[in-house]
């Protein structure tokens, strides 16, 4: 009897011991879904290049917790089913330790439940739909950046702070989920914060539309004070260029929450005086990072390697990698320096604070990241053949992110005009 007890005790000790100190792997495998084909590869390709550079840096410093990182890229452009199959293959056959997925909100929505099934750390590294954590309770998925609600709400705040007597607005968004959802958030917030603004036109041209001439003629006739477009990539470039060619930019202020990613491509086509956002505090001339050698050397290296300055998906990638690194470090130290189990890393993600190449981001109880938002007005500066940002405002992420447990649409309805002055922000000018 006594021997049996000892045997049982030894066995249980061995079992718990193995759960606490996992064997340190030779390689930490990370799978990243990103667009390598289709229109969204304007985001996916720079993000991939950024990931490769940053992972090389991490490995040069000895890797994460002494383990080098190996990365596997998956093309989101392959479409839903193929993406899910590839995701499953990476987790089950290749045995990745963490997945970063994805750029597309639709893909994030599909992958969330799959990550729960597979019990794999899933970092939603770029997708923006606010619904993910409002409508689901995920253990394995985390978002290391803000979502559409703070992004749109900060845009409304910036617009109202810079144009307090705004009377009329029109919208030209892409006809798909993001174009529709972002307008729903923006218009709800605007209606609450300045109820007397009139929406004079709502256009949702086809995704990938090559021509906005008719919309532009109509907008010239209507002359709204501001024109919102949450479009991106080629669609945004085309719209801005056609608007400038036709002089629409002289009569209305463009409000472009994603245009940070188009600034360099647009070159001379985006004149001064229009509002630009960056889906977070992402800007290659981040006003608080001018003296930060790590930041400026990354920006220079990226420009040299890819021929373009880094844009927000690159910075989102930096945040996801920094969160991964932070979670492992936190879990390792919680485990007394030994390599942590998978579940311990998941636990470490909650409440984690980390910084990519911008301000700090914190993961809330609902796994949503709280990220500050940067907006600015375009300015032309000698030495750059494209528009830069001036009159920048950095909005406090806490105040503009839907509180845990609330649905954005309902929370926005509770806002009042006083909200505009209640949100903390800091101002920066170009070169400050």
């Amino acid at each position, binding site marked *: 009897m006594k021997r049996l007890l000892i045997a049982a005790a030894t066995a249980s000790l061995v079992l718990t011991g193995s759960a606490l100190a996992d064997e340190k792997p030779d390689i930490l495998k990370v799978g990243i879904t990103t667009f*390598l*084909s*289709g*229109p969204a*590869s*304007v985001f*996916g*390709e720079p993000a991939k290049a950024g990931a490769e550079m940053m992972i090389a840096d991490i490995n040069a410093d000895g890797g994460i917790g002494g383990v080098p990182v190996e990365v596997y890229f998956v093309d989101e452009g392959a479409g839903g089913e193929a993406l899910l199959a590839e995701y499953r293959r990476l987790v089950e056959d290749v045995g990745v330790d963490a997945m970063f997925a994805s750029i597309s909100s639709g893909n994030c929505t599909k992958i969330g439940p799959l990550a729960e099934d597979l019990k794999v750390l899933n970092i939603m590294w770029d997708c923006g739909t606010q619904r993910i954590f409002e409508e689901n309770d995920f253990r394995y998925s985390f978002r290391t950046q803000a979502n559409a609600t703070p992004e749109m709400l900060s845009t409304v705040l910036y617009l109202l702070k810079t144009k307090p007597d705004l009377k009329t607005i029109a919208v030209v968004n892409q*006809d798909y989920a993001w174009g529709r959802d972002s307008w729903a958030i923006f218009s709800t917030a605007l209606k609450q914060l300045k109820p007397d603004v009139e929406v004079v*036109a*709502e*256009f*949702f*041209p*086809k995704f*990938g539309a*090559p*021509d906005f*001439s*008719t*919309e532009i*003629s*109509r907008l*010239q*006739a209507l002359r709204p004070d501001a024109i919102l477009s949450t479009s991106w*990539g*080629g*669609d945004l*470039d*085309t719209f801005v*260029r*056609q608007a400038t*060619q*036709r*002089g*629409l930019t002289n009569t209305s202020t463009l409000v472009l929450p994603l245009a940070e990613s188009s600034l360099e*491509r647009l070159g001379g*086509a985006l004149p001064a005086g229009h509002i630009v956002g960056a889906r977070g505090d992402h800007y290659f001339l981040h006003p608080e990072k001018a003296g930060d050698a790590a930041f400026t050397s990354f920006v220079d290296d990226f420009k040299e390697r890819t021929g*373009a300055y880094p844009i927000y998906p690159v910075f989102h990638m930096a945040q996801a990698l920094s969160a991964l690194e932070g979670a492992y470090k936190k879990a390792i130290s919680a485990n007394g320096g030994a390599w942590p189990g998978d579940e311990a890393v998941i636990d470490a993600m909650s409440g984690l604070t980390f910084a990519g190449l911008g301000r700090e981001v914190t993961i809330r109880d609902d796994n949503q990241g709280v990220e500050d938002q940067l907006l600015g007005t375009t300015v032309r500066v000698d030495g750059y053949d494209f528009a830069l940002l001036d009159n920048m405002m950095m909005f406090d992420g806490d105040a503009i992110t839907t509180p845990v447990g609330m649905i954005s649409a309902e929370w926005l309805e509770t806002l009042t005009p006083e909200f505009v002055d209640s949100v903390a922000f800091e101002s920066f000018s170009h070169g400050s």
Partner: protein
Amino acid sequence: MNATLFALALFDGISYAALVFLVAVGLTLIFGVLRVLNVAHGSFYALGAYTTASIGSAIFAASFAPWLAFPLMLIAAIGVGILVGGPIEKLLLSRIYEMEDVLQILVTFAVFMILEDAQRLIWGVQPLFEATALNALGTIEVLGITYTVYQLIFLPIVAVAVLVALRVGLRRTLTGRLITAVTEDREAATSIGIDAEKVYLITFMVGASLAAFGGALASATTSVVPGMGADMIVLSFAVVATAGLGNIEGAALTALLIGLGRSFAVYLWPEVEVLVPYLIMLFVLLVRPQGLFGMPDARKI
């Protein structure tokens, strides 16, 4: 809707129709003569746009005169038609004319996919933009609205010129008459000594050049992006099917119909804008299954 808005919608519709016509007419020409529904047609549109935009960016960065943008478009379009269209007809399509229709669609679809990837390999995924031609012509103010001369005047003139050239070319020139003869009856034409293979090759290169020309003209107004060919091919099919496959004047009229329908929708009911081409197609095909100008026996698919 008052008279001013009516006029504005008319202008917008015409300039849009001009571009759509140029692409669709190449497709319908190839179908009319070769009896092949060429899915790769959209690729020629994209290749024309990419070639013009990339060469344009290079030469205007080296401060060449802006007027060169116009001959560049023509050269790029003909270059794409001959250098890309020629081998495709000679090496691929010429082998499958006798085979089933569905095989032709699959083969041209495969060519389309290959060319899409080739574009990404050559030009990458970042949007290109080259508007020297458009900027060179300046703007014009009509009824208080600023238009670009390029879109409002130049594009419609080019479209009409192409239409007239095709009509005259097919009826008055020797090559045109040979093409018409082969279209009417290939066997009879071959028996009196017409080289049908050569006629097919020339027609395909002309059709491909027209699509590339459409792309070259569009490159001055729109971002050149991966996938632009796929969007254009869908719209062109709608135009060609509505017009009746193989009918050139029908393509012109349908392009105009779709262009105007779309611009009036933006003024009156923006929500249905994207639906307009397909609503028109649906309505026409319900009443006339062979298309507006098609002969019932001309239908192949």
